[in-house]
């Protein structure tokens, strides 16, 4: 299931603005990779290039290569819609579909892609909600609106929705920043559980979180306002947090700037 991502020489632009510059890295399958760095350094932009969500924004474009195992996601014959089925995404703010019930939210990705068999849907919905640690809380009210859940539950619902389409990579853009510590813990436990099946990439502003959940950590930075974001270093999380190669990483982690 899980796939390796190899990025080489990636640049991303918003219109004329050069947002990230020349990023190369490898993301190992069945592991959690955390992206840390100050605001505006291009972490989220880079994350969105990994499932071609970047180009959804008018004027945005990407140069470079993103290899998912043997396939280049930016190859000319690749359908971005198909890419997003393989590389799922969870957003910063929980965004369940307001017109749909809990069940329909989880089933949305499948239904909208043509899976109609009730038995199959029931099974996948239950499995996804269980994987997202939400099943026990919602199993008696699957027909109730998804927007009626609490923030933390909504975010787990969004995770269930993302894994219901059985992606091979899961991208998470600050999935806990709008949540309280208890919901955050639930999601972190979930990430630990999910990494046995998926390749997970998580953007976070919380360095303790990066240290807790990730196997590898990438530090991004910008030279100054208006400059493109760059990858400073990527290494095992334990190394980044105890003995980073770069001075800037150490300064950021110890709180001397950013």
């Amino acid at each position, binding site marked *: 299931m899980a796939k390796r991502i190899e990025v080489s020489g990636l640049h991303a632009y918003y219109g004329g603005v050069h947002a990230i510059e020349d990023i190369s890295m490898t993301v190992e399958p069945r592991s959690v990779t955390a992206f840390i760095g100050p605001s505006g350094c291009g972490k989220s932009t880079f994350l969105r290039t990994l499932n071609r*969500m970047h180009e*959804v924004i008018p004027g945005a474009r990407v140069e470079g290569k993103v290899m998912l195992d043997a396939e280049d996601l930016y190859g000319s014959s690749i359908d971005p819609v198909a890419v997003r089925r393989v590389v799922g995404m969870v*957003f910063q703010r929980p965004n369940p*579909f*307001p017109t749909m019930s809990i069940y329909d939210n989880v089933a949305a*990705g499948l239904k*909208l*892609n043509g899976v109609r068999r009730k038995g199959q849907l029931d099974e996948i919905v239950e499995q996804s909600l269980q994987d997202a640690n939400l099943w026990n809380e919602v199993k008696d009210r699957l027909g109730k609106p998804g*927007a009626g859940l609490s923030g933390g539950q909504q975010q787990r619902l969004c995770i269930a929705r993302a894994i219901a*389409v059985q992606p091979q990579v899961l991208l998470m853009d600050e999935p806990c920043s709008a949540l309280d510590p208890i919901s955050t813990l639930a999601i972190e436990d979930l990430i630990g559980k999910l990494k046995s099946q998926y390749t997970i990439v998580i953007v976070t502003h919380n360095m303790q979180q990066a240290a807790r959940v990730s196997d590898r950590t990438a530090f991004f930075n910008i030279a100054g306002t208006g400059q493109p974001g760059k990858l400073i270093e990527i290494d095992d999380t334990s190394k980044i947090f105890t003995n980073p190669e770069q001075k800037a990483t150490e300064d950021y982690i110890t709180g001397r700037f950013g």
Partner: protein
Amino acid sequence: MTSLSTPRKGSGLGSVSTGRKVKDRTVQGLVYLAFLLALVPLLSVLWTVVVNGAKRLDPTFFQFSMNAVAGKDPGGGAYHAIIGTLQQVAITSAIAVPIAVLTAIYLVEYAGNGRLGKVISFFVDVMTGIPSIVAGLFVLALWLLTVGFGFSGFAGALALAILMIPTVVRATEEMLKLVPNDLREASYALGVPRWRTICFVILPTAMTGIVTGVMLAVARVMGETAPLLLTIFFTKAINTNPFEGPQASLPTFIWEQASDPNQTSIDRAWTGALVLIGIIMLLNLLARLVARRSAPVRR
């Protein structure tokens, strides 16, 4: 931090000053006054129409046409006009709503900052300003005189559709813009193609507003008289075929009856107006019920 978190005591939390209280009251009073002023014409119109229209609000009015009924005769009804109006508005909506909703979808979801989008948007604005009689003249010139069709309910519906399209485009556009971008991205991130995202995520979310916009437009065109006189003409007889021959409609019925100097005719005109208002209100209620079923669920 401490100074903020310790509760302040004494003079720090004084009562609201008299000046602010007075301002608050004054503005509140002005707002209520404006509200009442806005209600005056509305209630006055409703009251007049109900009082004058109630006289002829009898079964006969809904069962008979004006065929062979002279102006001074009692009896007679608007059966022909009610049928005509319902048929014409149904055809108008069938033409205008799909075109308008699809146009709005194009403008919001696809056009971006493209040139075609700007051109369409400009012409929608221009169309909003077309006086209704001009729409009628346009259909008269094109459909009746150039192409050569005769008066018909359908020709009237064409003229009404020209008036309805821009209103529905604008209303739908506003509603689609209100759909949070988060939902589009959530759907794209599931690998859902754009058209499915629009059909199953965006349109349902905006449905209540779109239905309201359509109803306002329906209410507007239902009261149009001038374009109908040029395209449908009018008749006192029942014509259930909207594709052939002159048809009656409630606005033309009211116009025709009100211009007759007999009290019996004038009473019929008032009742016609009452029925027209009633139909619009019924359609509104119906639309609200439909919209409620597909409305975004709230906590």
